[in-house]
């Protein structure tokens, strides 16, 4: 077994902030909009239910997998399913991370361009983001995780400010009928909404050796609950404030909500702050993502030179992201769904196996 090098001890608070950023960065993408459009007035309820389901899954994964298997998720796959199982899982993880990164880069580039650089070419923003992500990933993993502790509070503060600035002026009648298109619609949207939380898998790849591993479930759960609350409040704020007719033809919910903020002539626009935190959030996620892609390559294929792999990946992902308009519409989005749910299903399966094995060994 190739031992995971990512075992440096991380502060539990840093891990909490990693969890929060992983679970809220998708607020900046078009993923929530796909749910808002189909859920209508039931969007907050769907969001809450998918959040509760995600918390359950996260608790199950951290408590079963990390407590019963020594190492990270890949070590668990090897222990439970053998070398072939590990390679297959590595390929699935790499596919998810790569697709998710392409999607994230494309989304954030478009969002940042929309907010601040409407006439500049898209590649200009893409280069800006990927450069930040690659430079971040070239440092060690500890630095990337530590950066979350510094920047995630800023991102959270701005999101809270955005929510507070919009939620109190909302039209509560937009929340009714509570079940929107009906119970079936709420349940299906709640299920698809779990995609907002699939990036928690990345945490399981780091083998989160917090200050005390015993408390890892608690640490992760605190972060996850906080992120769930932010996601729910964002959905609530969006539903209260943005009419369905206006949301139908738009891509980015945060952009629509941001435009609604109005403090009179004093400090009129939140655009600059949203621009800053969206750049920070995407760079943090992509740095972590690149680090983990490299680490997965290292553990499965034995790559040891980080800079060439990370730079090559950065260039490749940027090129694919810039050419994504040539792909069939929403193909990257569907790939994110397929790979995300695939990885999550595999992880749940691994956690169940780990739990069963642990119970059996205890009996022996």
């Amino acid at each position, binding site marked *: 077994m190739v031992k995971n090098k990512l075992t440096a001890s991380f502060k539990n608070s840093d891990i909490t902030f990693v969890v929060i950023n992983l679970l809220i960065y998708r607020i900046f993408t078009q993923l929530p909009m796909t749910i808002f459009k189909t859920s209508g007035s039931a969007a907050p309820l769907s969001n809450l239910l998918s959040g509760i389901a995600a918390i359950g899954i996260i608790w199950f994964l951290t408590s079963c997998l990390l407590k019963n298997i020594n190492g990270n998720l890949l070590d668990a796959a090897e222990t439970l399913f053998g070398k072939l199982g590990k390679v297959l899982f590595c390929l699935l993880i790499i596919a998810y991370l790569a697709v998710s990164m392409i999607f994230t880069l494309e989304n954030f580039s478009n969002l940042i361009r929309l907010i601040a*650089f409407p006439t500049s070419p898209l590649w200009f923003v893409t280069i800006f983001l990927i450069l930040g992500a690659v*430079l971040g990933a070239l440092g060690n993993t500890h630095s990337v995780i530590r950066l979350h502790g510094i920047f995630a509070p800023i991102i959270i503060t701005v999101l809270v400010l955005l929510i507070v600035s919009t939620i109190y002026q909302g039209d509560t009648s937009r929340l009714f*009928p509570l079940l929107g*298109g*009906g*119970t079936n619609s709420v349940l299906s949207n709640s299920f698809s909404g779990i995609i907002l939380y699939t990036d928690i898998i990345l945490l399981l790849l780091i083998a989160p050796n917090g200050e005390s591993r015993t408390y890892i479930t608690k640490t992760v759960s605190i972060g996850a609950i906080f992120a769930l609350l932010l996601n729910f409040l964002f959905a609530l704020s969006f539903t209260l404030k943005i*009419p369905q*007719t206006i949301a139908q*033809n738009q891509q980015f919910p945060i952009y629509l909500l941001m435009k609604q903020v109005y403090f009179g002539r004093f400090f009129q626009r939140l655009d600059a702050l949203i621009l800053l935190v969206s750049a920070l959030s995407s760079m943090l996620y992509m740095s972590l993502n690149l680090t983990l892609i490299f680490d997965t390559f290292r553990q499965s294929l034995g790559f040891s030179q980080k800079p060439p792999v990370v730079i090559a990946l950065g260039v490749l992902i940027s090129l694919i992201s810039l050419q994504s308009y040539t792909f069939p519409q929403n193909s990257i989005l569907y790939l994110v769904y397929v790979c995300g749910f695939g990885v999550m299903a595999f992880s749940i399966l691994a956690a169940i196996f780990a739990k069963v094995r642990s119970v059996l060994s205890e009996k022996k």
Partner: protein
Amino acid sequence: MKKNKFFYILAAIFATTSLSGCYDSREIDETAYIVALGIDSENQKSYNYTFQLANPLEMSGGGAENESGGSPDSSVQNFVVSAPDFYIAKNQLNNFLSKTIDMSHLKLIVFSKTLDDDGFLNHSQFLIHEREVRPHTLVAVASESAGDFIKKVKPTLEANTAKYYELMSIRSDNIYAPSTNISDFLDQISINNRTSVLPIAHSSAESSGEAHNPDELWVGTDSARIDSKNSCLRGMAVFKNGEICGYMNGDCAMIFNILNRKIKSCTITLKNPAPGNSNLVFRVNIPKSAGYKIEKSKNKYLITVSQNLDIKFIGEFLPEGFNSEDELYNFAKQTISQKFTDFLYDLSRGKRADIMNMGNHFKKLFADTTKWDPTLWQKIFESADFSVNL
């Protein structure tokens, strides 16, 4: 280690030099800012767009006066473009302006009342999708021509026309007109029964909306005139199915504002029923917006509107014709309640437009959209009885 340091320094230099460029830079003196837009229908295939552009060089930025009577407002320039749609008009305007057009300071959009329903909907959609147009931009309907209104606007006590529009739209004490922004307007005329209200933009001192009945105990405010004949927002145009179905005067707009708590306080003047006595003036504070209750008895629905009002008589002594304060306040409540009821019946039977969005309260009774039928609500609204509790 040295190689790594060299790489990082190189990357940092590359990043700072390449990413700190001036993409999307816009110099203020190279930009033409639209502050108001008027849309008139010329014929079925063409519109007249009146663009009011800010003239920053004429704006001193402070509170400098421009009260020279009839002199034109030099802080803005107006351009009229006839075109089949807004984008063609904007591009056409860009053809002869040396500066780049920017709509991020657009504060007021005025529609002509002769616009067809597609005209209102399409233009609202176009404008809300413009990146630079803010959702809270104020929208109004001109009593005559939208272009005329924009040309005749004379900012009083304000050197900056854009600031004048902004102050007009954000303040909360415009009692005699509703304040509707482009985002809400588009939403309201796009869904369900497609009802909305817009303030009426007057460019002269003509009457707004329906004439007031002189026999009423409620003293109408439409007789008030501004001596300087300035343009103003007063009364409201009522929309149903995306087009104007009627107009209401400033008093009705005040009732609309009270029931929705768009204003926090106002004064109401009533005639003293005792002959030969002066009018009675009451200060009304509105602690919260109206509550609605819908009940069904036999085949008829009764909509009870509960509005909590804090009414205070303005005067030192009990007016003649009243024996006690209770009698005075009962009279006030009854008269105000009757006026509110008349307003609701006018909406229900006359305009047939639920601009108070009572249907949204009714909608709460249903679990999901499959069970909620807006057309059923429309029938209920048009035949319901109204009762107002103050």
